Every structure is written in structure tokens, then in C-alpha cells.
């Protein structure tokens, strides 16, 4: 890919109709990349079982999305699915695995642990609060653990991101499609309206109520 991405735009663009061709090649490359993801077999805890169900079980069957070729070696894989908690001792190894993967590489954080620490967010002295503290993450899939269907939704979102994302002219820059992860039928205006409602609600604080609530909590804490 190196030769194409480095030299092709420079050769093609001065030609008449060249930029159209570059865009077409962009689309072809992104389309093929998005439909042939090779995930790395990496799992630390519970989410790995649900990921195994997603890849192995005939009911779910990840092969439908062209992503069933799981590779144990990071050098042959281009999708890192962080399935499970990352603790301090594992963090450098995860970084090494990510560095060993060939470009372009994509990262999915599945499960609450990989997103923010999940159930181990408070009071744990070893957990990394979110895998994005170590490596850049493209798609987050919430759940504890996420169902295989949720995992596929994340995978489809990633495919959409790849198809709309990187171009040869700007390698390495990824455009994140905001609408990709939205439920069907929801538009940007709906989100704006919801945000405005939330803001107006939050802006009006009843100070006496808030103080009473705070006193209640502090009393409970003292008791605890």
C-alpha cells in the first residue's frame, strides 16, 4: 500500500479527471479494507467469551461481515478488539501488541472495563480506567459484557467509519461519522433539541433542594 498511497495522488492529480480517479481509488480501498478485517485473538476476561460466541457460534457467525479470520499474531491482524479489563501489568503488553500491528489498524473497546474500568472503576488499585489511556480507540461497545449483537453493531459502525474515513490525500486522518452509532430514525435536530432541553434543565438549579440533597448524602456517608 505504501507505493500507492505515497506516489499515486501525485501522479494522478495533474492529469485531466485525475482527482475523480483518486477519489474512486479511495472508495475502492476503503471498501475492501472495511470488508476484510482480521481481528487479533486477544481477550483478558469475560468479554472474550461473548466475543468467542460472536465469532464461533453458528447463530451469530462473524463471517457474515468478513471479519472471521482471527489471527493469534498481531503482525497479521488489523483489528484489535480489547475484550476485558486491562490492568497495570498488562498495559505495556497491550501497547506492544498495538505497535506490532500493521497500519492501518483499528481498535474496538468492548465492555465497560475497556471503556472506563467498569465495575472495577472504584477502589481497585490495579485497573486501568479505560483502554484509551494506553492506545487510541476507534469504536466503543458498551455492556458488561456486550451481547454478540452489540458487538456486531460496533463492528458495523467501524466498517462505516472505515468506508467514510481515511483518504489517500490525508493518510492517517480518520473522520468519525457522528451519525453512525445513532438509532434508526433519529436525526441531528433531535439530538440538538435534546441537548438544549438538558442544558435548560441543568441551568436552573433549585439551591435549597440541592443543599438538602447534599446534606442527606453526607449524613449517609458519615454513617457508612
Amino acid at each position: 500500500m505504501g507505493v500507492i498511497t505515497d506516489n499515486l495522488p501525485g501522479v494522478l492529480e495533474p492529469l485531466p479527471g485525475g482527482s475523480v480517479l483518486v477519489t474512486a481509488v479511495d472508495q475502492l480501498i476503503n471498501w475492501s479494507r472495511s470488508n476484510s478485517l482480521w481481528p487479533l485473538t486477544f481477550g483478558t476476561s469475560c468479554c472474550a467469551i461473548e466475543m468467542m460466541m460472536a465469532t464461533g457460534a453458528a447463530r451469530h457467525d462473524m463471517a457474515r461481515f468478513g471479519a472471521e479470520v482471527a489471527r493469534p499474531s498481531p503482525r497479521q491482524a488489523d483489528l484489535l478488539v480489547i475484550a476485558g479489563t486491562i490492568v497495570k501489568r498488562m498495559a505495556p503488553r497491550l501497547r506492544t501488541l498495538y505497535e506490532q500491528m500493521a497500519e492501518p489498524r483499528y481498535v474496538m473497546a468492548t465492555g465497560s472495563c475497556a471503556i472506563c474500568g467498569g465495575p472495577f472503576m472504584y477502589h481497585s488499585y490495579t485497573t486501568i480506567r479505560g483502554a484509551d489511556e494506553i492506545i487510541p480507540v476507534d469504536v466503543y461497545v458498551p455492556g458488561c459484557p456486550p451481547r454478540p449483537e452489540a458487538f456486531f453493531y460496533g463492528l458495523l459502525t467501524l466498517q462505516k467509519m472505515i468506508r467514510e474515513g481515511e483518504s489517500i490525500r490525508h493518510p492517517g486522518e480518520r473522520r468519525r461519522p457522528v451519525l453512525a452509532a445513532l438509532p434508526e430514525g433519529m436525526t441531528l435536530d433531535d439530538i440538538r433539541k435534546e441537548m438544549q432541553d438538558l442544558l435548560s434543565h441543568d441551568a436552573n438549579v433549585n439551591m435549597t433542594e440541592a443543599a438538602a440533597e447534599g446534606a442527606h448524602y453526607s449524613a449517609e456517608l458519615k454513617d457508612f
Partner: protein
Amino acid sequence: MSVHVSTLQARISGESTASSPLSTEEYFVNMGPQHPSTHGVLRLVLRLDGETVREVVPVLGYIHRGIEKMGEHGNYRQFVHLVDRMDYLSALANNWAVTMVVEKAAKMETNDRIQAIRTLVCELQRIQSHQLWWGVFGMDLGAFTPFFYGLRDREQICDIFEKTIGARLTMNYIQPGGVMYDIHPDFVKDVKAFLTYFKSKMPEYDALMTENVIIQERLRGIGKLSAERAIALGATGPVLRASGVAHDLRKSEPYGLYSQVDFDVPVGTTGDCWDRYWVRMEEMRQSVRIVEQLIDNIPEGKTFLVKPAAKIKVPAGVHYSHVETARGVLGVLLVSNGKDAPYRIHCRTPNFNNLWCIGEMATGGRIGDLVATLSSIDIVVPDIDR
């Protein structure tokens, strides 16, 4: 951990113990933490002489999350959901271990309906766990079809759990004072349908793996563990029973409704990989027997006997209780100072002790047999590190 690393370094820099004139220079191979056959992030340091394994040293801590310490920061009910994440394939049995020690210490009452539901779901999960092990074991030996078959049938139990419990893996269902929800109206019908289906599929399992000459030749005589060493190393569950020791807490210290049902404890003879395989296959059949006896006789009654928000106070002192999970004995030691949060919690997990048998099993064998031996122990790494 520093103590462990220093002994490793001493071993690496130490003199070779090869004595035979035909033996070659010894060398070290690092297996894991990123390895497809270690079922998670386990690291094994192997000392090899040619293809012969001289020593296997497990190195732990790559998924240590401090669950025991976290237990001290919440109340007793809040600790139950954390043990789901230890041995996630026996989440219900883990819930039950914590519940049992709290109920015993706080002298909380239960009724027969609660115990029947707990016994039923735990046995269903034992089948589910062994199905997953069976599929992964086949894959580790190089056969891919068992993986599909095992996971296909496991989905049926996942559906049953989803209807009643709402989760597929991390259940948080069995609580001090009862179970979270009553069983779904379809539960009995679904379980019966599953049993009919599963009994028709067991011959398929046997034809594919158990009666397969290649599998038998591959497994017989490798990874041997004698009964004395198994007891000395603290092995429990199918690993211990395969070595010929008929120890099963469901028989020796019956809890739940296990004293009212009729089932056998399968026992191996030589303690090799084949015996461990056979014991687990037989355990699936015994679990089916237990479920069959209980499914028509679920007593009537309440399913939660205390208020869900009620604070549980455990009298000061040391309390211990244990259950038989799919992998062995899970014991929970509770030190209480009389408050509503535990002072100290320790979990005696089955996988930790079972893993350390790998040194005994693999030493002297070939490196090609190591993955089969490791897979036959059926480890879950977060349960080892906690």
C-alpha cells in the same frame, strides 16, 4: 511478584541439569501472555531440553484486579456481583458461594423453592461451562468442528438464562436471602425442551470426539497426575476426580437440594488427559440427571425472603463456606467485625490450585502435549488472578 521473578532469573542463570550424554543444551521459551492456547493472559515460562519439557513455571498477575480488596469497600450484597467476574463460566456457583457464607453467618432463612432454583440454575451452568470447555478443547487439539457444536448447544442454555435472569454471562442472580427474580413462566418448558435436545446431541459429541481413535491416542497417557500429588497440590474438581479421588462437595457436604437427588460422581483411574476429558463428559450426563429430577418438583413459595434494600449485619468472627463449581472447590473466607461491610474477604479459587498441577503433569513430557494438558485442566485466568 519480585520474589518470583528472582527465582526465575536464578533458574535461567543456573547450571544446566542435563545429565544424559544424548541430552542437548537447555533453553527457555516464554509462552504468553498473548497466546491463543492460554485462554486469556496467562504466562508460562518453559525450560526445555530439545522437545522435552523440564519445567513449567506459571507467571501470574496480568489480570489481577484486586477483587478481594474491593470487597472491603462495599456491603455484602455489593460483593456478589464482583465474584461474577472471577470465574465467569461458573458465575452462579460463585454467587452461591458468597451467598452461602453470608446466610450461614447471619443466620438468614431460605426455603425449598429458593434452594431448588439455585440447584437447577447451577447445574444448567455446569453443563454450559463443560460445553464451552469441550469446544475449546477440541480446537486446542486441532479439531474445529467441536467448537461450533459446543457453542451451538450452549446458546440454548444462554436463552433460558436470558429469560429468567436477564443476562447471558455475568448473572448476579443468587443473593443473600433468595434469588433476584422468580423463574420465568416458560422456564420449566424451556429446560425440558433443552434436555430432550441435549440428550439427542450427546451421541453426536461422543461420535465426534469420545469414540474418535485419533483423540483417544492423542490423550491417553499424557499429562499424568497421581492421586497423592493431586491432593498435595490442592487440586479439586474434575482434575482431582480424574486422578481417582471421589471428592465432590455435592456428595460429601451436600448443600442446596443435592442431598435429595440421585447422581453419581464419575472418577478416573490414571489421571491423564483422557480421564479428565471422560470425567467432564460424564459430569454433563450427571447434571442432566439432576436437572431431570428437580425440574418437575420445584416447590411453591417466595423467592426473596428479605427486603432487597435491607442491610445485612454479620456477627463478628471468621466464617467459611464452600461450593463445587464446574472447576472445583470455591471457598469464601469472611472476616467480619460486626459491621455491614466485610473486614476481609479471601477466595480460595479452584483454578489457582489446578493450574499449579501443570508443573507436575507436563514435566518429562513433550512440548507438543503441553497445550493439550493445559487445556484439559480447563483454566479461567481471571479466577486465578482475581
